[in-house]
């Protein structure tokens, strides 16, 4: 397949944050309210929109483990992108919206065993729908505490289910050439005062999920919110700037940073 997905395409910006090839896994992590789910919506739109509106017209599978998919927000983003790209009187908007939404498949999981069984079940979908190129998991860390408690005292038992999921994902990546984006919630508070220029490899948001998952991850996007500047107009303070810091395990070790803010039409890269 080899479809290249880039994050900064929609804004026409030349500064590309990330090139992702099929068969790779991207982990989007960060504390709450830093725009992780918004980034997933941005990616979703890029994939399901028709080619005439700048999309890729591929199918997307969304695995929702913590009921955080807000369909109304997603539809408003798709709507605003469609009206921006196509002329307002181009045919029936409902039809285009429906065809975009039919490229999206949503699955809800309520425990890590159900996640494992569902991934096995989805193998059928991957083999029967060759247009299914992207798997989004929001979030992979939803069952972390439940698993830790169930596993008792031994770490290997605690991490068993997520390890099995990671191994299965690895196999699905190889066999079906899909790309995986997964969000991971932070469990430790990042102390304010860390400026983005002083990022080192031992930043306070260390990965905490099991080793099999960490080996699978190719790129890691660390999201954070910039502290709002004192002064400035009320408008400026309302527009929170979010930054994304990308580190990859392949290629160069250089870090890349990009920033965006959230508008009614979704993520807008600056």
């Amino acid at each position: 397949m080899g479809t290249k997905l880039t994050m900064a395409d929609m804004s026409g910006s030349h500064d590309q944050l990330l090139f992702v090839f099929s068969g790779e896994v991207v982990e989007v992590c960060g504390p709450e309210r830093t725009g992780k789910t918004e980034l997933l919506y941005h990616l979703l739109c890029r994939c399901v929109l028709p080619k005439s509106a700048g999309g890729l017209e591929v199918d997307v599978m969304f695995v929702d483990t913590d009921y955080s998919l807000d369909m109304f927000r997603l539809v408003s983003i798709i709507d605003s992108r469609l009206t921006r790209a196509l002329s307002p009187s181009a045919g029936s908007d409902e039809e285009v919206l429906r065809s975009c939404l039919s490229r999206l498949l949503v699955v809800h999981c309520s425990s890590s065993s159900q996640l494992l069984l569902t991934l096995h079940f989805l193998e059928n979908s991957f083999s029967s729908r060759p247009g299914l190129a992207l798997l989004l998991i929001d979030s992979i860390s939803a069952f972390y505490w439940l698993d830790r408690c169930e596993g008792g005292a031994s770490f290997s038992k605690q991490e068993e289910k997520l390890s099995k999921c990671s191994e299965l994902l690895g196999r699905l990546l190889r066999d079906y050439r899909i790309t995986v984006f997964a969000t991971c919630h932070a469990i430790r508070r990042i102390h304010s005062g860390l400026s983005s220029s002083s990022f080192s490899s031992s930043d306070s948001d260390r990965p905490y999920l099991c080793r099999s998952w960490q080996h699978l991850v190719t790129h890691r996007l660390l999201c954070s919110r910039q502290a709002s500047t004192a002064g400035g107009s009320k408008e400026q303070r309302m527009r929170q700037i979010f930054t994304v810091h990308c580190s990859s395990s392949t290629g160069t070790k250089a870090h890349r940073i990009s920033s965006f803010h959230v508008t009614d039409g979704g993520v807008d890269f600056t």
Partner: protein
Amino acid sequence: MVVLRAGMCPGLDEDLVRDLRAADVKTVEDLVSCNLEELAQRCSVSYKALFAVRRVLLAQHSAFPVSGADLYEELLSSTAILSTGNPSLDKLLDSGLYTGEITELSGGPGSGKSQVCFGVAVHVSQQLKQNVIYVDTTGGFTASRLLQMLQTETSDKEEQMAALQRIRVFRVFDVFSLLDCLFGLCSDGLQQASVGGGSVKAVIVDSVSAVVAPLLGGKHNEGMSLMSQVAGVLRTMAKDFNVAALVTNYVTRSSSGELQPGLGVSWSHIPRTRILLERLEEGTTAASSAAATADVSRSSLRSATLIKSSRQPCLIREEFDLQWWSRSKDQKTSGLKRKREEDSDS
């Protein structure tokens, strides 16, 4: 983990379960993850039979993908927005509490969280004529306060009693009883609380931090796991039965000294919308008299700040009066008119 038992599906009999257990395959997950050809040889069972059993078990226990278009249609028809009864709060919440979601109200002691919960319960029960489940974990629920609020809405005693009957109260004082209560409600489809043929539209838990906070901290992870379970059952209830879940939380101070909701980072991902309530600081000087400060502490004005929302820009702030729900209808309409004028002026 689902343990394999005879009779779970056609083709899975006692002998097969025993053979599988001998080959160290005890749960559905083990069966689904292992190599079937190898297993068939080890247990001397036919590959076809194993494959059929695996397919049925997988279909029984995994979740099914739904097309985005169908999901959107379903949400459009089933999601309702419940007004809280207070127009300033409704403005913050983008016209009210959405069903299928968890909304969190956090604030310090005396900031009015329970009063807002009472107001919402009364409004949903009296104006929207829907049932409400109120889970009280602090012992702060008083029916007389609700009656007071209802008496300003309607003077008909029958209507007041009917509205009170639509609010079902559960008193739980530790996390295990809370989980028991919520799981029990889910398993019988919220029938317990559906009085008079109405359906439950709101579930209020006041407060969730009172039962979870004592378990957090320390070396044991059970507290975090129990918190995840409470979150899980509330979300399932909200999504499956189309109710709006409203929970309250306490506040702590962050390292930079500002107020933030409690229960830590792991809880912060769970509510879809979060509101922080604070007392309003009237501009009192340091040399204020005792009478002035007493006035401030008895004031019913509060400010609500939106700190997390997927629909509105964050950090918008509204001021409102806790006594809104106790005002008579005339006072409310004049208050609304004044508010609309203020909004159009600014």
